[in-house]
């Protein structure tokens, strides 16, 4: 166990003048201002202390001191501590050392700020465009404040993403942007030798809609939870909770205990139905539709309950800054207990059927293997990491909401393959049921909303992580003026996990591709949408049904 003081001492002894300032508003959050020249060394030191890289946050600070900011965030899981290394580079020459050679998972974050802020990273192994569309003009960096939120540069012809070079003797098989395996648009160019996969390049971010830029310029603090919820169609409450917690941390708002319990219950309801959904999809991906139908049938009862509780099957709109919007009445409490009982019973049947099915074993055991060390190096999260023997779970390591008051196990397996992810997810579903039951029992009475004053001091930093069904979600918030964030960065769990997929695919069969990609429970839209303006952005936000129809008709007529 390292305390915050020990981390501070270690850093200041080793790096002395490179450490400019420490800030720790809470016992579990450490913000360090560092010299930009030593970013790479200090990051490595944090990793040596047991830090796990989360995400980087870039922001525009030009108006204040003509710099661009970059924050690398790390989680020290054993010590319940988040360490954020803040550095600044002059805006006219925004060059920094890349940390990607040591921490491969930072690759995307850094590419993101090449695209969006015009930063440059020396030593980056793959400085290609990541987020912006291929026809976005060079030199417009949409996350800079001078760029308006609704800018739509004219589309360009004849531009295309250049794929990585195909290994000799291999053929490129495109998977996506539209493919039965992928339920959202993303493009994997798979290099195959016969049916053996020898590599893969990824071009995603096709539904990037600039949510962050929108929220930094157009709306106010307590409108964002509803937008945050729409980041993910499955784990919406996770994003709303994580965002709300970050605002609460930044403003020092303490919400009522009952609200925290209801948040916990909502998060676990989402985990139950998300894991059931995944189980069905996984069955479908290996050509076993009966699993798909049964898992989704079982899932249906909790969807009905959610509708009763919140008014919606999904996108509940329950969680806002300061608490939750609806209470769990005694009748609903009883009903939920009944629903859980049915699900537990039916899931047990499905579990026994799956565990005993040798045909499923043959399709999932020894498939999509990466070692524990590789998974650690690539900072994988969630069930994908837990299936590789990495014992992390934000609910236990950095407790939030009411997780400090419930008991649960974190299933960890070390067979490192797709099978382990199946087992981990099934076991987690049982744990979730356990958590909901405890939460229902222990939930105290009290108000569900705490008044939120809405005038937070600007430029406070806050980081909040929530364990989504797919892994941890990280929200980083810098408070701003005019009652809205200066910077809000969302990292969905698929963001790190997707970067590990090429490694999992290597030397496996093409037929295993669906289940390997499926095993991370990919949520491409969450991953994509996190950042900002895209050609589609203005359209996506403002289009009404009628407008869409008009455009379609105009196109149809033009075609004739």
């Amino acid at each position, binding site marked *: 166990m390292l305390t915050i003081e020990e981390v501070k001492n270690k850093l200041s002894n080793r790096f002395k003048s490179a450490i400019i300032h420490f800030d720790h508003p809470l016992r579990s959050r450490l913000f360090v201002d560092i010299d930009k020249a030593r970013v790479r060394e200090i990051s490595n030191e944090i990793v040596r202390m047991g830090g796990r890289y989360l995400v980087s946050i870039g922001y525009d600070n030009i108006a204040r001191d003509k710099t661009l900011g970059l924050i690398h965030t790390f989680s020290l899981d054993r010590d319940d501590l988040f360490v954020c290394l803040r550095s600044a580079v002059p805006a006219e020459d925004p060059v920094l050392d890349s940390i990607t050679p040591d921490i491969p998972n930072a690759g995307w974050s850094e590419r993101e700020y090449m695209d969006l802020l015009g930063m440059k990273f020396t030593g980056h192994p793959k400085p290609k465009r990541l987020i912006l569309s291929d026809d976005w003009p060079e030199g417009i960096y949409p996350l800079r404040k001078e760029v308006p939120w609704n800018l739509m540069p004219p589309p360009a012809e004849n531009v295309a993403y250049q794929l990585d070079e195909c290994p000799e003797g291999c053929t490129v098989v495109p998977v996506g942007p539209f493919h039965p*395996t992928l339920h959202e648009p993303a493009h994997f160019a798979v290099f195959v030798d016969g049916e053996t996969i020898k590599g893969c390049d990824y071009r995603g971010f096709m539904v990037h809609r600039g949510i962050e830029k929108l929220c930094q310029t157009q709306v106010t603090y307590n409108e964002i939870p509803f937008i945050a919820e729409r980041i993910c169609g499955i784990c919406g409450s996770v994003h709303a909770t994580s965002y709300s917690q970050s605002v609460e941390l930044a403003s020092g708002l303490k919400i009522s205990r009952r609200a925290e319990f209801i948040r916990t219950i909502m998060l676990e309801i989402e985990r139950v139905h998300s894991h059931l959904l995944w189980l069905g999809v996984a069955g479908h991906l*290996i*050509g076993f539709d009966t699993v798909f139908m*049964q898992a989704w049938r079982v899932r249906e009862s909790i969807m009905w309950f959610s509708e009763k509780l919140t008014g919606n099957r999904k996108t509940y709109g329950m969680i806002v800054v300061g608490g939750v919007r609806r209470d769990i009445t005694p009748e609903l409490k009883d009903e939920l207990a009944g629903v859980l009982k049915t699900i537990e019973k039916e899931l047990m049947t499905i579990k026994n059927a799956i565990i005993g099915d040798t045909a499923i074993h043959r399709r999932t055991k020894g498939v999509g293997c990466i070692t524990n060390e590789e998974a650690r190096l690539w900072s994988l999260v969630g069930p994908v990491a837990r299936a590789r023997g990495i014992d992390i779970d934000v609910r236990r390591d950095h407790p939030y909401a009411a997780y400090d008051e419930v008991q649960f196990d974190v299933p960890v397996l070390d067979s490192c393959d797709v099978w382990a992810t199946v087992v981990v997810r099934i076991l987690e579903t049982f744990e979730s049921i356990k958590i909901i039951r405890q939460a229902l029992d222990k939930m105290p009475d009290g108000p569900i909303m705490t008044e939120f004053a809405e005038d937070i001091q600007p430029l406070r930093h806050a980081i909040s992580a929530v364990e989504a069904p797919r892994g941890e979600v990280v929200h980083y918030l810098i408070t701003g003026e005019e009652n809205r964030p200066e910077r809000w960065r969302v990292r969905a769990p698929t963001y790190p996990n997707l970067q590990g997929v090429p490694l999992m695919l290597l030397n496996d069969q093409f037929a295993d591709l669906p289940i390997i990609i499926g095993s991370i429970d990919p949520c491409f839209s969450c991953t994509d949408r996190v950042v900002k303006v895209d050609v589609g952005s203005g359209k996506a936000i403002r289009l009404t049904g009628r407008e869409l129809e008009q455009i379609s008709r105009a196109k149809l007529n033009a075609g004739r």
Partner: protein
Amino acid sequence: MTVMGLVVIAGVLAAVISCAAFLVWFERRLLAFFQERYGPNRVGPFGVFQVVADIIKLFFKEDWVPPFSDRAVFVIAPVFVVASVLMSFAVISFAPGICAADLDVGLLFFLAMSSLGVYSIVLGGWASNNKYSLLGALRGAAQMITYEVFMGISLMGVVIMADSFNLKKIVEAQEHLWFCVPQFLGFAIFFIAGVAEARRIPFDLPEAESELVAGYHSEFSSMKFGMFFLGEYLGVTLISSLIVVFFFGGWLGPAFLPPIAWFLIKTFFFIIVFILMRGSLPRPRYDQLMGYGWKVLLPLALLNLFVTGAVVLVWQN
């Protein structure tokens, strides 16, 4: 050819095709039953006219030939699949006297026709000029050639025992004991090979929708797709009726039902087994399937042939 002969041919053709059409509905309802949902139940009583609606829809879909395809081959490929399966039905004895062509080499004729069926897959996949289709076609070729080898061998035990390649004589030879008892291994192997031959789950690798979109027939639309679709269900019917002929005594059964009824009941039983398999097994991987074929089923089929041959030889002496 007699008038009676023509009537039989027309009757078999009509019966077989309507059976395949019926199967489309039947399978969807039955799968839905296994998976605790409803299945098509809106068009007509119990949704039986769903098939009619589907066929009308298929007819009116745009019949698209991709500009990058090899046009002639693309058009001819779907014909092969239906034609080859329908030809196989010619040699089946449904009941005494109901047989389109009572060939003495009936069994060999069936094997020859099922080999022809591979062409539709390879040609369809190749002519589509699409990577998914090509992968599907190559898988299809490898899978069907592999499984044909021991499909043939697994039937040789039956031929030795019946002393004939004629399907009618094979049925008659089962008067006292159905071949599924002495030839149980042969039956099991033929059944597995038959599923592979009909390209059904769990052996639908040439199609493998989750990775290959629709495999060899990704590019086909309208009735060209309809042909592949029909071919699949005809294949299921064919393999089921052949299992009945070779191993379950064909039309033989207690006299309170006419022979043709016995034949139909038995065939439908196996069709249901086919559907049940689809509902209860995932798709194995391509390399696992090939390994299973060459390393397990082929040696077993050979063993079955040698043991049967030896036993029959000893018996006759």
